[in-house]
């Protein structure tokens, strides 16, 4: 298939793999964090680790939208779905993420609450138009990629005068999460986690551009290569990072030039800035409270903010004690380091968020890579 097969070509992949093997310095190791779940998925789905030399290692990052939402926010969404007259809509993966007491939106749906899976914010808006007697709440999650569609939905709801539509906003920001990881004691002081370089997000960067990464490439002296989600994109980015590390450079390079510019999508950014503002701080699963890392709806659009319409519980709820999702999201642990991995925690019965989405590090390793540890 055109524009797909070219980026999955085995011959080209082997050529890049040979270049990586030839250029990687055997005297050192390369720990490369792919921030995005989309990259985590591609690496596992195509078995890319098989193509890398032993001293080039991928470290999975926190960029999986459903993985980083803390238990408290899931509980809040379930609470909203249980309010009389409410229809809660969200993206598919969100339904299976465990909240407190092993509850999930999927289980809350089986209890009889009106919870729907939608493919886009427009579907949620259409539901609100079709059912004026229901309060339709869109449980909005995701990084900068999914934020503009939420902004469009709010604008349209305003234009249509839709008073039975609102957004439970959980949009989070990529650069602040990367900074948080680089500032974490494990990376900065203890040195227990080696992070030599980053593969930068694909879709997120189409919106925000490559400029936001320039700050921490410079400040933290870590190279960044923005890459697409196809396997050859990832392989090429790894080669570019190996070269930067070898040269002692720490620049932002753009492998995904077919979609990402330095300034990103100005129109989308303007729209987001019109509707949303920064939260002072937001809790992330694994990263804890991260300052200025998430968005809330601005005052002029308060009418479409579910957190203003209802007294949504704001409690912080700890993760399951045995679950290592937090450490896995920071790159401190690997999925196989977790006692629950593959024993009581599987994609059919996830205990932690990383086992839910195909972009989660645990689900990706369990689904595609567990033969490596089977002995």
């Amino acid at each position: 298939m055109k524009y797909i097969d070219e980026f999955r070509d085995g011959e080209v992949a082997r050529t890049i793999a040979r270049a990586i093997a030839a250029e990687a310095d055997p005297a050192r190791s390369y720990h490369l964090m792919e921030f995005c779940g989309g990259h985590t998925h591609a690496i596992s789905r195509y078995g890319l680790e098989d193509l890398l030399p032993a001293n080039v290692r991928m470290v999975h990052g926190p960029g999986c939208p459903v993985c980083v939402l803390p238990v408290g926010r899931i509980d809040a969404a379930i609470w909203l779905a249980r309010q009389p007259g409410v229809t809660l809509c969200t993206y598919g993966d969100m339904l299976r993420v465990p909240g407190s007491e092993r509850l999930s939106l999927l289980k809350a749906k089986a209890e009889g609450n009106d919870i729907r899976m939608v493919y886009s914010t427009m579907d949620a808006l259409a539901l609100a138009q079709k059912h004026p007697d229901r309060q339709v709440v869109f449980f909005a999650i995701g990084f900068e990629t999914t934020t503009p569609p939420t902004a469009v939905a709010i604008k349209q709801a305003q234009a249509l005068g839709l008073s039975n539509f609102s957004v439970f906003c959980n949009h989070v920001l990529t650069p602040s999460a990367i900074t948080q990881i680089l500032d974490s004691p494990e990376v900065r002081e203890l040195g227990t986690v080696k992070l030599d370089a980053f593969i930068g997000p694909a879709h997120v960067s189409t919106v925000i551009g490559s400029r936001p990464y320039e700050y921490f490439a410079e400040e933290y002296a870590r190279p960044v290569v923005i890459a697409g989600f196809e396997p050859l994109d990832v392989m090429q980015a790894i080669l570019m990072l190996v070269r930067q590390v070898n040269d002692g450079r720490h620049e932002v390079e753009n492998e995904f030039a077919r979609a990402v510019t330095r300034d990103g999508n100005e129109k989308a950014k303007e729209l987001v800035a019109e509707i949303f503002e920064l939260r002072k701080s937001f809790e992330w699963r694994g990263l804890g409270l991260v300052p200025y890392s998430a968005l809330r709806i601005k005052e002029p659009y308060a009418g479409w903010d579910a957190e203003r319409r209802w007294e949504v519980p704001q409690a912080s709820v700890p993760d399951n004690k045995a679950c290592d999702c937090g450490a896995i999201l920071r790159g401190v642990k690997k999925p196989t380091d977790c006692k629950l991995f593959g024993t009581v925690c599987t994609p059919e019965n996830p205990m932690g968020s990383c086992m839910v989405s195909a972009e989660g590090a645990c689900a990706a390793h369990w689904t595609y890579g567990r033969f490596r540890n089977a002995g």
Partner: protein
Amino acid sequence: MTLPRRTHPRPLDTKSGRVDLTHGGGGRAMAQLVDELFVAAFDNEQLDQRNDQAAFDVAAGRMVMTTDGYVIHPLFFPGGDIGSLAVHGTVNDVAMAGARPLYLSAGFIIEEGFPLADLKRIVESMAQASREAGVPVVTGDTKVVERGKGDGVFITTAGIGVVPAGVEISGDRARPGDAILVSGTMGDHGVAVMSRREGLEFDTAILSDSAALHSLVAAMVAERPGIRVLRDPTRGGLASTLNEIAAQSGVGMLLRETDIPVAPEVKGACELLGLDPLYVANEGKLICICPPEDAGTLLAAMRAHPLGRDAALIGHCREDTHHFVQMETSVGGTRVVDWLAGEQLPRIC
């Protein structure tokens, strides 16, 4: 002996009429529905007897029996409908034992208010599929449930068939070294159905592959009766079906991604929807596992049949105590091809 057709003072209004509770009540209204719709469409000697059961002589040898419920939504989709699907699906389940399907039964659960015109369309499509397959529907049942207690119509069919002497096909017979063949492109049915789902509608030229596979199976069995496993990869797609077989037979498998046939339109739709074609349902394809020396002959026999034109050898079974189904990916890495986790899309068949 065939009874004369009963006559009813006014024919069933199959233009604008609707099913009501009397159509399942056991009285004249039900008799009329059965006569004018089901008996007329299925048109065979056993059904004409209007007994509570069908009588037929039993063939010598081994018989197989299967049953399947059909709850697909939407009822009509590109390339088929719930009626033809209810025939094909059950004929295929019989055929996957290498058997020749003989007879079908059909049970209808219809929701009050369902348009008689739609019911007629479904029953006629079912009758046509059964005629084309040469497998008559010889007994049936109709129930009507109150509005809101069903979703249009649900159909359950059962089928029986007879296995030719010397054929022993079963999911536990795959052995290390055996070849794994598929009869054509993967994922057509699922994508065709999804393209008509509310909130998901997209234009595609893809038709469901829904088809009765028993003549393909007969051609294969005639050529190589030593086939070990046949199975149709319906719900859960190729990936889940291969995992079932691997677990049943106690083997591992290694596939080659580039050898698995997927239509470009299906690939495109799956890219868009974030699905993996290996997990998308098929209704007119089969997986065949056979001794490696039979693979060439069987592939040729499959490709000579209209329903096996795109048949391909996609991998081999091997020793593996974990029973992993693994795949060499297009870029040369290796991954597990796992069971489907959760549900890609409910009510696909």
